[in-house]
């Protein structure tokens, strides 16, 4: 687990350094990009628990290469899934992401530009309950499942002016660890529970976003 993390962080830092170096040398254009969208798991069993989640990303895209068609975007973001269990309890799945996305201005039709993209993110995953007993009384449980993992995403972005829509597919199979007390409770009930398990969190995503030059 440690080696892929180091590799991702290494590549991210390298991209940042390269981008900053280029920016310093040639005054590389930088775009502020943000997007909001929806994630939908491809695995039916996971999707039955969380039909869809809300995703948010923010990053600074450096325009590089020939005619500034290559975009390198260090980015961060969150994806949030909620599942209302009853009137007071909502199960939540929170994924915090940090990584880099590379896109390329492949072609355009009129005012519409098409950017195929590739992204790699390091993810922190936590699954917990939110309990609300009134307007101000909200509490969060300890996480039932938590873990990390690297995701890879491919897709295409269609941009009109400063706005764009994005469709992608993320490969993500994090290994999540279950809370020790759950293992103990299961054992008392006559079940043997492994300490960790790989979840199929591959997902389709659709987003809309903006790309502005500050």
């Amino acid at each position, binding site marked *: 687990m440690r080696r892929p993390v180091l590799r991702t962080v290494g590549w991210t830092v390298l991209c940042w350094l390269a981008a900053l170096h280029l920016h310093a040398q040639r005054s590389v254009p930088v775009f502020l990009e943000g997007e909001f969208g929806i994630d939908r798991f491809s695995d039916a069993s996971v999707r039955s628990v969380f039909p869809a989640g809300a995703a948010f990303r923010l990053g600074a895209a450096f325009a590089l290469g020939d005619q500034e068609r290559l975009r390198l975007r260090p980015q961060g973001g969150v994806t949030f899934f909620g599942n209302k269990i009853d009137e007071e309890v909502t199960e939540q799945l929170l994924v915090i992401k940090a990584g880099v996305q590379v896109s390329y201005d492949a072609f355009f039709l009129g005012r519409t530009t098409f950017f195929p993209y590739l992204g790699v993110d390091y993810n922190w995953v936590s699954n917990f309950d939110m309990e609300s007993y009134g307007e101000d009384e909200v509490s969060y449980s300890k996480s039932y499942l938590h873990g990390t993992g690297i995701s890879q995403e491919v897709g295409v972005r269609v941009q009109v002016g400063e706005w764009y829509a994005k469709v992608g597919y993320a490969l993500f199979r994090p290994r999540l660890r279950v809370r020790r007390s759950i293992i103990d409770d299961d054992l008392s009930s006559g079940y*043997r529970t492994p300490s960790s398990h790989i979840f199929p969190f591959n997902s389709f995503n659709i987003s809309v976003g903006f790309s502005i030059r500050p």
Partner: protein
Amino acid sequence: MNKVHGHIKFALVALLLLAGCDGEGTLLELYPLKPIVNPEVRTLIQDNRIIHAELGARNQISGITAMGRFETVDRFKSFTFEPHHWPEEGLFAFGVDLVVRVVSDGPLPSLRYSRDNGKTWLRYEKALADSGDPALGEVLPVKLTIAAENVIWLLCQQRAGTESVLQLYQVDLIEGTHKVVLKKRDAKALTFAAIDRDSGWVLWEDPSEESGGMHILKTTDGGRTWSDGAALDRMAEPLLEVIDGSRLLVFGQGETVYHSADGGATFKSITTGMGAIRECQAVTADRVYLLSAEGRLAKSTDGGLTWSPLTAQAGNTLVSGSNLCFQHEQRGIVYDIDRMFITEDGGERWDVLIYPYDYVVQ
């Protein structure tokens, strides 16, 4: 441009609506978990109860329940169950491919035996009594024992008026004969233990001695001659365990335990720290296991002189039971009517084989 903004707004609203959908179940329900015991073992404990279990070669565990026989060679991942009715009444003893049952269905006890784990029973046809005794009264079985080579010893108490007579029988099923090997007047039979056809010990007390103690008798020639052993303080429902030809243990219902290293001639008081003892098994001359009335386990490695309690946990389940059966020093089971645990390392680690978890007893 306004048209683009309109589409984006529409897309955002649609995304928000989709993200607000609720699912079914929880993510934790997708986390794998594996039942520790085969749920099918409910056959053995639901509306049923385990009566006897024993270990055999090649990981075999076989036994008897109130409703039939069972057998497994893979720790109950799979098992066979052959239904038949188990008789409830009487005293039982289990030997190698032999189950013996004695019942008081008249003035004399009658003996029945089974060579197929209780599926079919044969009756020992001869009357178990000394027909020459003119003062024949009610004879009650006290202790039934199967020693080595499936030799049956039956300790009885005969009551004729106010008189109490202790009787000990040795029964040979192959020959179809029995003999009274001990008859002692004014003696109340307490318990008996034997190693084989020749060596046996009887624990008795004199009913006329109000503050009297217990006495021990020993034979090494199949009951032809008996020698007196030491006298011990009176105990309620004593348990006699023979470790080898010279070492004996006598457990009471309290903390008191007696240990003899000379075949019962002398005893010294020891302690196990386990309270009342339900069952004891000498696996070798040195290694002895015991099960307390509370279901706790202890082990001795010096022939029963000193004892150390075993921290018997199988996962989060406390190992407990009313019976134990060790095949050798390392491998043994502890069981009760609705549970069974196994160890393969002399009681250090235990696994659950049968337990009334919720998913087992529905």
